[in-house]
């Protein structure tokens, strides 16, 4: 039998009479539906993880690549002068679109997660931060550092490359892990369906014997099992996907709380990816059952 979409469709719409030849097996039926539902539920989260980390990696990569931070550490009496001198240097540096000193409130907000909301920032020797926005192909960091060293001795330029790369790498690794998890889920589903199909074939050895006696080909016998297991996996995966999508939908949104974990979910058209989970489960089941059935039928001489 050559697997093709037409063949898959034929199996779905199928031959109810052939399907009836194999008695319903409650245990394997429930096992298959449950496995497919559980795996689809997990697949929704793995997919959400992959997409969320993908978005995060892209955002970090893009946003951090276009910005830099200048940190000025100076005695309090020189702070304003050095800040102004630094802004003057930055405003005349090619590749820099804009630069602005962060306000006390903004710096306080940055430190708030670590020190709480009542931090007396005014009384502490906190460095002044200047945010730099790049344009075009960006600025020359070596040249800028040299100019700053001469004109603003207390300034330290951080172009983010030091910590941007490992963050993006971590996000990309997390995205890869999500896809690997999806592959593992598909492989586990295939393994479980194979075991269930083998159990069903073993339990129906007498049925197979009778069908062969009356002239049924291996493909005819296999079809009854393939159709049944494919539909069960499809149905179970649809249930699991709906439940998983509901669970993801109920997670707090990024806007409400902020942070990475709350960004776990789907945005806009990404929800359409979920449609592929039951389809994939059906296909995995189709090929796993087909392979198991034909292998077992070959063994049953």
């Amino acid at each position, binding site marked *: 039998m050559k697997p093709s979409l037409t063949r898959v469709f034929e199996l779905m719409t199928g031959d109810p009479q052939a399907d*009836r*030849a194999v008695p319903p097996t409650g245990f394997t039926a429930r096992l298959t539906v449950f496995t497919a539902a559980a795996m689809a539920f997990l697949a929704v989260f793995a997919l959400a993880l992959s997409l969320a980390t993908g978005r995060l990696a892209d955002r970090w990569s893009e946003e951090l690549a276009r910005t830099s931070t200048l940190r000025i550490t100076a005695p309090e009496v020189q702070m304003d002068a050095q800040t102004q001198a630094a802004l003057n240097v930055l405003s005349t540096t090619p590749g820099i679109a804009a630069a602005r000193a962060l306000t006390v409130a903004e710096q306080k907000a940055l430190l708030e997660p670590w020190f709480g909301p009542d931090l007396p920032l005014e009384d502490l020797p906190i460095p002044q931060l200047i945010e730099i926005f790049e344009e075009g192909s960006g600025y020359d960091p070596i040249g800028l550092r040299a100019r700053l060293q001469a004109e603003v001795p207390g300034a330290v330029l951080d172009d983010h490359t030091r910590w941007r790369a490992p963050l993006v790498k971590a996000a990309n690794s997390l995205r890869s892990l999500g896809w690997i998890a999806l592959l593992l889920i598909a492989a586990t589903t295939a393994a479980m369906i194979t075991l269930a199909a083998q159990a069903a074939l073993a339990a129906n050895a007498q049925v197979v014997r009778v069908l062969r006696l*009356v002239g049924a080909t291996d493909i005819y016998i296999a079809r009854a099992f393939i159709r049944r297991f494919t539909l069960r996996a499809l149905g179970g995966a649809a249930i699991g996907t709906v439940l998983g999508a509901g669970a993801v939908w109920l997670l707090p949104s990024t806007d409400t709380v902020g942070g990475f974990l709350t960004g776990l979910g789907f945005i806009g058209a990404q929800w359409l990816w979920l449609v592929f989970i039951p389809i994939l489960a059906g296909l995995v089941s189709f090929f796993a059952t087909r392979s198991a059935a034909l292998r077992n039928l070959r063994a049953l001489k």
Partner: protein
Amino acid sequence: MIELENVAYSYGGAELFSQVSLTLAPGSFHFLTGPSGAGKTTLLKLCYGELLATGGQVRLFGADAASLQRDDVALLRRNVGVVHQDCQFLDHLSVAENVVLPLTVSGREDEAAQNLDDLMAWVGLRDQVNQLPPELSGGERQRAALARAVIMSPEVIIADEPTGNVDWEMSQRLLKLMIELNRMGKTILIATHDFNLIRAAKSQVTTRVLRLTDGRLQQAGAEL
């Protein structure tokens, strides 16, 4: 049609029979007899491709059985109706569904409706079509098995102890059906150790009686 030439069959190193030659010509009627354990059922299985001979050659409808693929054997079985002593039904299907199963598996379900009524009337089971096989008596099961064996209008009917579990009256009824099939041109091979059945058949139709004993197949003698 079905030819066995110097066929041997061994199982687990022990030879069950050897040098067995048999030709089932179209329209012939054969009985195969012999003591229990002589290999009658095995010999029948060789005749419909369920087993492969360990020696000699089996030709089924002109093809060497040893060279047939499994699906070729399946297609070949559509030309051979088989009746087992234990009938081999699917107990979750109705009698009607079991009887039309050969048509179903060969994609000819549409012929079932037109053939089933006549066939069930012929075997006297018109009122039992919707029952499940376990609800039938021994004789009814055998007749249902015969109906299933002939629904594809096969050229050969092979029956393994079809009267083993039924009374004399029912065995006569089954024999009558077999003889009617033979008169329609079907080739019949029945394995049995019921000599009364063989004698009853010989009085009505030309038969050839073979005896499988001590690992050899021979023409049955004076005991009949």
